[in-house]
């Protein structure tokens, strides 16, 4: 009943099955923690190369052990709790941002299906029937880590950061969910295993091409905003908020937040690969006995590519202003993802309906554009909005309002 879609439990839960599950969990966790330390090293090294610096080099070859050294250092530093802090929540928050990153990775298929001792073993820690919805649920939960960390610090800037975080993450979750729906529509499956299988017949069946690139771009932007990675990291904007939500954190609790960020980066790269790039799908050379290795290699290559893109974003793109982040989420991504979902659904019913939907979406976007235009030309200062929070009048808007008044 609880087993759901996983064929491992098809013949009942025996000792061997439990052992296989345990091995999957332990191996998955260990490999993933290794990947996280590598990711931290990779990000620092890649950014330092882009900025003509040397980067970490002291510990181990090419500075590979730098993360380990940092971890040991942070373990032995003093753990401070501010006097104004809410102690319980302050200590709980780092784990709340760590756990969702961990759980999400459990549903990512990293390889094909193995046959061990008469059991079909899918190379993913878990394959629950609600599948990709686990990812959405966990990305919803991951807000709490940032939010509660900022609030419980009992300090002003972290509080602003946590209010920003909650607003931003809720805004982008809608676009995220709608693009996931388009993927589910063409895959006919909620499970990550099913989504990957539906893309298995070659590059032209990958969802990034089948869905016409737009959902992938929306998803990528939305997930970057969910992660608070640059260029959407207004939550930890140093120039405005000191260090953001983790200003008051020190020692190993700070390290947990730091780790959670890199865990999330890897996990979400893996989720992008699963949803849009066929997961472990790829060309398998005719090698005896080792055919199962190549899907894993393909998966690692694809995830590495996206991890590099995240590093690249951090090095290359300037941070968006807070109101730009909100505008992008609400006025661009949500309408676009909704419209694209309608078009995809239309084409799934019949090509004729697809064109009807495309025409309808075109019409709606014209109406929306007119609405945006009219809305932008209205006075939006502190006088016209009850609470002047989150939308200060920009300098050019002030100027425009002044000039219009003089002309009128």
């Amino acid at each position, binding site marked *: *009943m*609880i087993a*759901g879609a996983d064929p491992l439990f098809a013949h009942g839960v025996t000792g061997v099955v439990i052992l296989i599950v345990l091995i999957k969990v332990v191996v998955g966790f260990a490999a993933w923690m290794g990947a996280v330390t590598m990711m931290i090293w990779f990000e620092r090294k890649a950014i330092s190369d882009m900025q003509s610096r040397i980067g970490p080099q002291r510990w181990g070859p090419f500075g590979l052990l730098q993360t380990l050294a940092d971890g040991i250092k942070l373990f032995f530093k003093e753990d401070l709790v501010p006097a104004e802090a*809410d102690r*319980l*929540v302050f200590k709980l928050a780092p784990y709340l941002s760590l756990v969702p990153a961990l759980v999400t990775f459990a549903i990512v298929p990293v390889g094909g299906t193995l046959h061990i001792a008469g059991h079909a073993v899918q190379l993913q820690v878990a394959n*629950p*029937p*609600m599948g990709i*919805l*686990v990812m*959405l*649920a966990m*990305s*919803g*939960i991951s*807000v*709490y880590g940032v*939010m*509660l960390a900022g*609030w*419980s610090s009992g300090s002003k800037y972290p*509080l602003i950061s*946590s*209010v920003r975080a*909650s*607003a931003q*993450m*809720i805004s982008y*979750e809608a676009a995220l*969910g709608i693009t996931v729906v388009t993927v589910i529509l063409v895959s006919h499956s*909620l499970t990550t295993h099913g989504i990957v299988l539906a893309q298995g017949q070659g590059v032209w069946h990958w969802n990034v091409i089948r869905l016409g690139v737009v959902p992938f771009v929306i998803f990528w932007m939305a997930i970057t905003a969910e992660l608070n990675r640059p260029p959407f990291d207004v939550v930890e904007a140093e120039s405005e908020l000191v260090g953001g939500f983790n200003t008051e954190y020190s020692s190993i609790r700070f390290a947990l937040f730091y780790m959670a960020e890199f865990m999330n980066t890897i996990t979400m790269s893996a989720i992008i690969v699963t949803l849009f790039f066929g997961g472990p799908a790829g060309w398998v050379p005719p090698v005896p006995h080792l055919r199962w290795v190549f899907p894993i290699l393909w998966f690692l290559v694809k995830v590495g590519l996206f991890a590099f893109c995240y590093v690249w974003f951090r090095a290359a793109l300037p941070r968006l202003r807070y109101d730009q982040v909100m505008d992008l989420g609400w006025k661009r991504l949500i309408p676009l993802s909704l419209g694209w979902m309608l078009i995809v659904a239309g084409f799934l019913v019949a090509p004729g309906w697809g064109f009807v939907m495309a025409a309808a979406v075109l019409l709606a976007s014209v109406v929306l554009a007119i609405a945006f235009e009219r809305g932008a030309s*209205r*006075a939006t200062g502190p*006088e*016209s*909005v*009850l609470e002047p*929070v989150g939308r200060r009048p920009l300098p050019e808007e002030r100027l425009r309002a002044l000039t219009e*008044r003089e002309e*009128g």
Partner: protein
Amino acid sequence: MSATAYALPSIVVFVTAALLIVVGALGVLAVRNPVHAALSLILTLFGVAVAFIAQSADFLAAVQVIVYAGAIVVLFLFVIMFLGVGRSRHDHVEPLVGQRPLAALGVVVTVGGVIALLASSHWVTGATSVSGSSLVKGTGNVRQLGTAVFTTYLYAFEATAALLVIAVIGAVVLARRERVTEEAE
């Protein structure tokens, strides 16, 4: 209830879920700090999600976490943080005089009614037991739910959607008061 013998794992799952729900619910009532109360509410919501999974309602469980824990409680917290009611010093002032006895009366009536309904019959289906789902093998949760929502309950579904849109537009209209006309004069 029927005389089905329950397996040990499902008893463990049920007890865990029930403990999460009850402890969380009591926490919401007992805790002074509104943020802690919201956190207790999340505990309850997770317990309900676990209970849903134990009943093979995977989709409902996921939606429960996405919508309630992931969005609605976040909005609660957002408002609590925004208004800064985290450390209220005016707990002793009772805004509504005499609300406590009335609340107690309301609780007794509601709980009594629910127990009476449960004892006589199931209050939605009219049956005395809801065990045994209509889940046909090979068709998932989502397919059945989708079919039900877009055929049998289409009218209720669309009415709810319209109601929500009206509520959103109303909220926007109330929050955005234009003063352009006054300034122009």
